[in-house]
């Protein structure tokens, strides 16, 4: 298949764009694969890609019940960052960041990764200390981080209410310059196309309805397009984790599914040039290439599989964005949407073998899954291919709860709605 480049664009433009080929094939499922990846979202597609690219395992199918990228990667505020506190998280997300930095090239697909910086605002001396602690943890972990004074913040981000009379005055901000945003759909499509080019079968409209088993061993899946056998079955279904696991007989699991809303304003000319988060509440905001302000806040706080948000949560988010940027009050909300998050008990993901033989699990991304996509796919593929975790995902097992080794960035404990 042709490489994408400025040249290929020009050539095709001259021929009326009639010669473009599908970005990926639409094969029928084969009866048997080496690996089946359930879930054609970002993580599943990345996993399939790295299985092929890094481990030479190409007899792989990705099964997607809807259209590729229809899960959380399709409804996303697209922030990429590695500004974590705990060493386990730092290692993992920084590994991801490094993959991001070369991703467009690697996939021959412009995922529009834009390292415009993520700025976390702090609003009290205590919060400033907590952010500085995190920034220093980043620096000790080899990750870039800077501390900005309110004056520096005012210069960098015009429109922010940096006045002392703000209800929660800005005490400073933690900036990760290498962090930024990417075009979420392009990530899914880029991985899909790259996996497909390496021989992976991407099968849409194929819902897994059950698991084939030999005793405890998982040997394949039943789907709406027939039974498919595989040596290994890997799960990367985000908000649907519990539902799919229930089909494998696992009734209880340390995951709750919650709705998270995201919002976009009408497009305007460049307004804010980095990602900004508001520390006196929970809000993150950036501007898309099209010009819309993209923002989100807390979960809707209850278990849900409906991709539908509620009004009070939306109002809370709007209040916070107006407190941060008083000019935004006059701009108009264009669209809102809700995604289903698989909230884990400590706010950190689970990437592991098991819980049944032949089964591999990747879940619990809460609302931080997008930025993790490359590292998640990479380490999950590693785990599937070698039957042992990569160093970066070794701490993210299920047994951490048994051992008391939770990776709890927010310190909220087993209360998923608060992570």
């Amino acid at each position: 298949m042709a490489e994408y480049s400025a040249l290929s664009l020009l050539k095709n433009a001259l021929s009326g764009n009639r010669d473009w080929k599908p970005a990926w094939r639409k094969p029928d499922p084969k009866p048997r694969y080496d690996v089946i990846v359930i879930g054609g979202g970002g993580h599943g597609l990345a996993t399939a890609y790295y299985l092929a690219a890094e481990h030479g395992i190409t007899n792989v199918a990705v099964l997607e019940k809807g259209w590729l990228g229809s899960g959380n990667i399709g409804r996303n505020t697209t922030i990429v960052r590695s500004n974590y506190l705990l060493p386990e998280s730092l290692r993992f997300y920084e590994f991801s960041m490094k993959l991001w930095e070369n991703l467009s090239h690697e996939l021959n697909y412009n995922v529009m990764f834009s390292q415009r910086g993520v700025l976390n605002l702090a609003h009290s001396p205590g919060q400033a200390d907590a952010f500085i602690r995190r920034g220093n943890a980043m620096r000790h972990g080899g990750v870039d981080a800077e501390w900005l004074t309110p004056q520096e913040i005012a210069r960098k981000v015009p429109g922010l209410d940096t006045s002392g009379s703000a209800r929660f005055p800005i005490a400073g901000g933690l900036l990760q310059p290498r962090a930024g945003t990417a075009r979420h759909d392009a990530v899914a499509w880029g991985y899909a196309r790259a996996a497909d080019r390496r021989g992976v079968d991407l099968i849409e409209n194929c819902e897994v309805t059950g698991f084939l088993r030999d005793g405890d061993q998982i040997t394949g899946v039943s789907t709406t397009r027939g039974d498919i056998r595989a040596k290994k079955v890997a799960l990367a279904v985000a908000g649907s984790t519990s539902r799919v696991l229930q089909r494998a007989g696992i009734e209880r699991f340390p995951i709750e599914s919650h709705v998270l809303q995201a919002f976009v304003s009408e497009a305007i000319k460049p307004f804010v040039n980095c990602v900004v988060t508001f520390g006196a509440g929970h809000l993150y905001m950036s501007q898309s290439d099209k010009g819309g302000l993209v923002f989100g806040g807390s979960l809707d706080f209850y278990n849900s599989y409906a991709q539908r948000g509620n009004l009070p949560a939306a109002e809370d988010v709007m209040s916070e964005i107006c407190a941060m940027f008083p000019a935004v009050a006059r701009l108009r909300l264009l669209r809102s949407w809700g995604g289903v998050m698989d909230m884990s008990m400590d706010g950190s993901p689970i990437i592991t073998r098991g819980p049944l033989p032949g089964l591999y699990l990747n879940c619990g991304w809460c609302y931080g899954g997008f930025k993790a996509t490359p590292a998640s796919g990479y380490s999950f593929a590693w785990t599937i291919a070698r039957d042992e975790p990569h160093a970066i995902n070794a701490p993210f097992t299920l047994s951490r709860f048994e051992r008391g080794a939770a990776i709890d960035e927010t310190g909220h404990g087993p209360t998923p709605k608060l992570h």
Partner: protein
Amino acid sequence: MSPRRTRTGGLIDRARTIRFTFDGESYTGHAGDTLASALLANGVSLAGRSFKYHRPRGVFSAGIDEPNVLVTLLREGVREPNIPATQIEIYDGLRAESQNRFPSLAWDLGAVNQLGGRLIGAGFYYKTFMGPVIGPLKGTRFWMMCEHFIRCAAGLGRADYEADPSRYERVNAFCDVLVVGGGIAGLMAAEAAAKAGKRVILAEQEPQTGGFARWSDETLDGKPAHQWVAELTERLTRFDTVRLLPRTAVWGYYDGNTLAALERVHDHVARTPKGHARQRHWTIRARDVVLATGALERPIVFPGNDRPGVMLAGATRRYATEFGVLPGNRTIFFTNNDSAYEAAVAIKRAGGHIAAIVDVRPRIGDAATALATEAGVVPLTGRAVAGTKGSRALSGALVQAFDAETGRLSGEARPLECDSLAVSGGWQPVLHLASQAGAKPVWDEDKQAFLPPEPAQRWTGAGAFLGKFSSADALASGRDAGLKCAGKRPSRARLPEIAPEALNPAPAPVLEIRGRGKAFVDFQHDVTADDVRLAHREGFVSVEHLKRYTTLGMATDQGKTSNVPGLAIMAAARGITIPEAGTTRFRPPYSPVAIGALAAERYGDLKPERFTPMHDWHVEHGAEMTPAGLWHRPLVYASAGETVEQAYIREAAAVRRSVGIVDVSTLGKIAVKGPDAATFLDRVYTNTFSTLKVGKARYGLMLREDGIAFDDGTTWRLGETDFLMTTTTANAGAVMQHLEYCLDVLWPDLRVHLTSVTDQWAGAAIAGPQARAVLERCVTGTKVDNETLPFMGIVHGQIDGALVMICRLSFSGERAYEVYCGAGHGQHVWEALMEAGEPFDITPYGMEALGALRIEKGHVTGAEIDGRTTARDLYLDWMLSKKKPFIGSGLMDRPALIDRNRLRLVGIVSLDGQKLGGGAHLVERGSSDEPGESIGHVTAYCYSPALQKYIGLALVRGGKARHGTRVLLSDPLRRRFGQVEVVSHHFFDPDGERMHG
């Protein structure tokens, strides 16, 4: 006289002339005009530029669906971008600017993008800009450089950074029936429900009710439709139980029949009166909802269909009839259905000239033929518009023979001169709200439109929303819907007689004419029919992929005009039917909503402020206040010229030397009462409270169920069954909720009541060697000597006439007392204490000194109890009772939680005489360039007046085992590195002699 304004007719007030400016040019219009109608009346056809190609564009619709003419309003000193001109009622002094053009609308440099049309079709971004593999532009840099220019070119209007001066408000409303849409169906529904005694709210997005009736030429019972509507509306206003909300768009349908609506209260006047809201956000809880949201006209996609002068047929009719504005001097109609014929007659009657009616259908009915005759033309059936002429304004259309069966054009393209082209591709009911409420639209082959399915929530449809396009059907279905909501059966009573009879607007299934040149599907985002086919070719065939790959339907009009044509083109490319191609689910909002309106009263005041009873005293005495959650607390009381550091050192030193006073009213306080109160406390605290004697207090620790430390505080036993629990300021709410959960859910058999008394008590802590002497000078009714009031004892007495409760407890290591009194007496008692302390130079101190004192004592607080530490990490294992289970005891002994190498509490002392810093890390080795591996971090630091050194608390791997060793302080963020000694966290008076003495 404006060039396009008719001599008479319309519902505008011709006696009132209104002046406004557009791009700096002055124009006039009349009361009742929208900006769009006024611009058209003035002959302004070029009024906008498109998003991507910067194509010249003119007004396309007459309502909420306008994709082309978005303007920036300059109002109240700020810019308000992206407002559709069709939605702006003009007022004297209105200032509007066109958008997305430089330097001007007529001469726009961005139009150069049109040259690259084929190059920058759908998805082009994804295929290039990856940049070089090496060199200064490798990695993401090349893309970011290109992105910079792309961003400047994208976007529509420009916003400024000035705070929005507007006021917004929310109103909560409750009703039996919410009617969405004030057309004749909605009005009938409202009247029927109101007559049945129901509380009704009727919301209409336009300034006036009536909808289609305002610009139709129908009569109802012999009256012009608009007059009939006005009378019915007037009747509705006479019901006490009916609330009419004009200029109110219902934009969100949420769970449980909660709907959100935006009322544009004062956008139609020059200035919002002081104290009033510019816009109002309604949250309406309705038992039943009537959706009478009408239908929107669809365009037909054909080459050149975006030229200024091309307009929806229904819009031309509305402009002519309601506003007295002709769309042009020579108008061609292009249609696949009969409704355009009615529009043509309306234009003709208003004095316009119809150049032709082009109809894709091979044959038309008698009624349409008669209308064509009345319009003065012979319809050109079996033909289609295959192209347009003109650049910044339409000058003609190319008409060609067309086979509706095969979709093919044939024969010569015949140019016809025109300056206005009115298009109708049929009508699509507005299903957005129903879709938000979970309804999946159903395709109706006959009507060639998606119709609502059976409702999932409590709504009832009426009128054109149901695909009932005739006024007779609208009246009947509206009345039935109102009756149904009132629990009544459909009525057989007479309905108004309507003349003339409406035509059936069922269209021919033709939504695209394929020819040469760009044919636009989504006008605002410049998505062409070829883009849709390119998406198909590249495999982006599901509706959602199509939308994302091409951005079809994602503009500010949210695809109101482009949705169905886009689907039709994709369906044709895939060789499947439209319903097989699918529909997208609509999300709130139906139409854009000002973000400030949703913030409502919280815009300008995000969170309520919480003040202690002594707040005003602190401010009057020079306290610098700092936020602590919602509270304001004194940070320091700096005297002139003092820095914060100097001030807190002075304050803390005063406590050690003599006596200080601090406001502790913010501590959470919970009354725990009942026969089982002691048992309850034993279960929630790690230590035992049932053994606590009446009149004594005890320090307690709570864990979470997972064994991690949760909160600490003292609890006072005021009576056998009466306890007063204190919590940290930050956790007060969480602890209360936790305790309530325990009682309601875990142990409903316990007889315990909880009441938040945080606000009942003002608290002042008096600490220092002279603390007792201060109390002795002012407390009456009790002694406060060591015997009467030993450490952790409680006494009751009075200070200057006010009842007080005094507990002797200390977080500073000093002899200290917490004096509690009724909050209303807080300042009174505080002042009395200040006066009593005068001989001892009593010093008020703030959070900083409070922190310094507790660090010296090694007392933990929120910085250490951070949700990741255990009791053992903080060396509080002595508080973990072995005699009883408690919350958290089940899991607190898991191996990783008792690992010796965990981060545990220590004290640190700066060895270089320099400040430490909260959030600094500790390393065994490292340099500023190579910070090394962190072994822990500083949780709190201060200058210790007692030790005359910079000291701190830290959580360090191994904890106690490191006492006496030296490690490096590493704070790369603030470029501070230095050596510290690890010591016990009990810096000051470790044996508690001062505290107990």
